[in-house]
């Protein structure tokens, strides 16, 4: 088994509840994400929140992104800071970008928010565009890009903003097999780019999410709203950080276990 330790809490959700007009959507959501440290590797965290369609994943996504306040409970990052909009990098489903800005202009919007990049904005954009193979598309509008290119541009935009937390809403939805592999590689590339990078994937694609995660939380519906029903530590099961993990029998068993819990 790969050597690792789990250290400081990076994100903590405590008793998070959400209801609309008295109708409970989420209740008592409790989970935490810790900094995983692996000797010799800049190992970030990849956490998946899995659940059936309509269970409330998108609502939880909005709470984590700070776009909405929970009815009760709290979500804190970096110690005790309540999550606010702008704290997290957020990659929406369908990779929304402003239609009236070129990719370069969209990326500049993000770099202007990142004080660390001051004076090196162009260099940072060039570096990430090259790494994600969209240099040729920098001066194009989003309408001129394919779905895969939009996704990459959207991820770079959020990376350039400087947040260590990156939230993905259904990143594997509607992708063909070839593009899906590229997206998986890209997410893994981001996860090891910095020790503190933390990817939170909200998805209903169990297999792909489990294949790249270190921890899985299962969200399922109960009376009184959806809640986290189960936590699976994939590192403990030796299912994390292996490229060929899908061939492992334990991986298939874990998928069955998750499906049974949904």
């Amino acid at each position: 088994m790969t050597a690792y330790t789990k250290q400081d809490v990076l994100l903590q959700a405590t008793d998070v509840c959400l209801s609309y007009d008295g109708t409970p959507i989420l209740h008592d959501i409790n989970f935490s994400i810790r900094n995983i440290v692996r000797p010799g590797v800049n190992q970030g965290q990849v956490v998946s929140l899995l659940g059936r369609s309509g269970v409330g994943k998108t609502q939880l996504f909005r709470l984590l992104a700070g776009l909405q306040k929970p009815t009760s409970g709290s979500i804190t990052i970096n110690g005790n800071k309540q999550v606010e909009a702008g704290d997290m990098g957020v990659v929406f489903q369908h990779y929304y970008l402003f239609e009236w800005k070129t990719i370069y202009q969209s990326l500049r919007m993000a770099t202007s928010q990142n004080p660390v990049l001051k004076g090196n904005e162009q260099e940072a954009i060039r570096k990430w565009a090259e790494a994600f193979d969209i240099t040729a598309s920098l001066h194009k509008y989003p309408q001129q890009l394919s779905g895969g290119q939009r996704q990459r541009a959207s991820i770079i935009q959020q990376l350039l903003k400087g947040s260590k937390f990156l939230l993905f809403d259904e990143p594997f939805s509607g992708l063909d097999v070839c593009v899906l592999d590229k997206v998986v590689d890209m997410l893994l590339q981001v996860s090891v780019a910095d020790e503190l990078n933390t990817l939170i994937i909200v998805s209903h694609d169990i297999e792909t999410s489990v294949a790249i995660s270190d921890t899985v939380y299962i969200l399922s519906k109960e009376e009184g709203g959806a809640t986290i029903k189960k936590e699976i530590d994939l590192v403990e099961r030796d299912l994390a950080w292996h490229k060929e993990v899908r061939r492992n029998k334990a991986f298939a068993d874990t998928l069955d276990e998750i499906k049974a819990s949904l």
Partner: protein
Amino acid sequence: MVLLQVVVALVLWHTTSNGLMPQPGKVAAALIHLSTTKLLIDNVLVSLALTLKAMLYAIIITLGFAYLSVLPFFRSIAEFIVKCRYLTLAGLIFVFTLLTQNGSALKLWLLIFGIVPFFVTSFLSVIVNINQREYDLCKTLGYSKWRTLYEVIIVGKADKVLEILQQNFAIAWLMITMVEGLSMSEGGIGALLIKYNKYNDLTNVLALQLVIFFLGLFFDFLLATMRRWLFPYTTLATK
């Protein structure tokens, strides 16, 4: 195809015209004659100047109310302006005469009053239909409310302003003939039209209608071209 339709329409017009209705040839001759006179050019310039001035004022007023409509106090005012579409200008001429200093100002403000409700209606509908994701993206980038307003509504919808101008230019152009009839001393294409109508000079009336029609089409084309040139993304096909 279009050419054929035009030819058929002209032939129908020519064959069905009786003594009262001038034939297309006569109207065309009147149009050519009018085009060579200083009278038409002077009057067209007067009308165009008034329309463009009114459009400029109207768009400034519209943008002011539309942008401020994100604040609850101004929202109700903007909604009231939208309802003003149902007011007829004819019933307000005396009120405007009392409120303005001279015929020129009367025409200008009547035109502005006539255009603004349509502009505000169109622009409010653009603001109301803004995709929530546009605001969300700004929030996730850590933008303040004012920066979000600037990026999403002011910059993001600038192309819509030109689109609304293009759509509503027809309304302004339609009203110009009516308001110019109120104070004819300064001339204008509307005043000229009323004069020809008064003497039942149907040939020149129709020739003038053609001038109004073609000028309208020209400005429609001009605004569409400007929009494509200033905001190239509006004409891009989604990949």
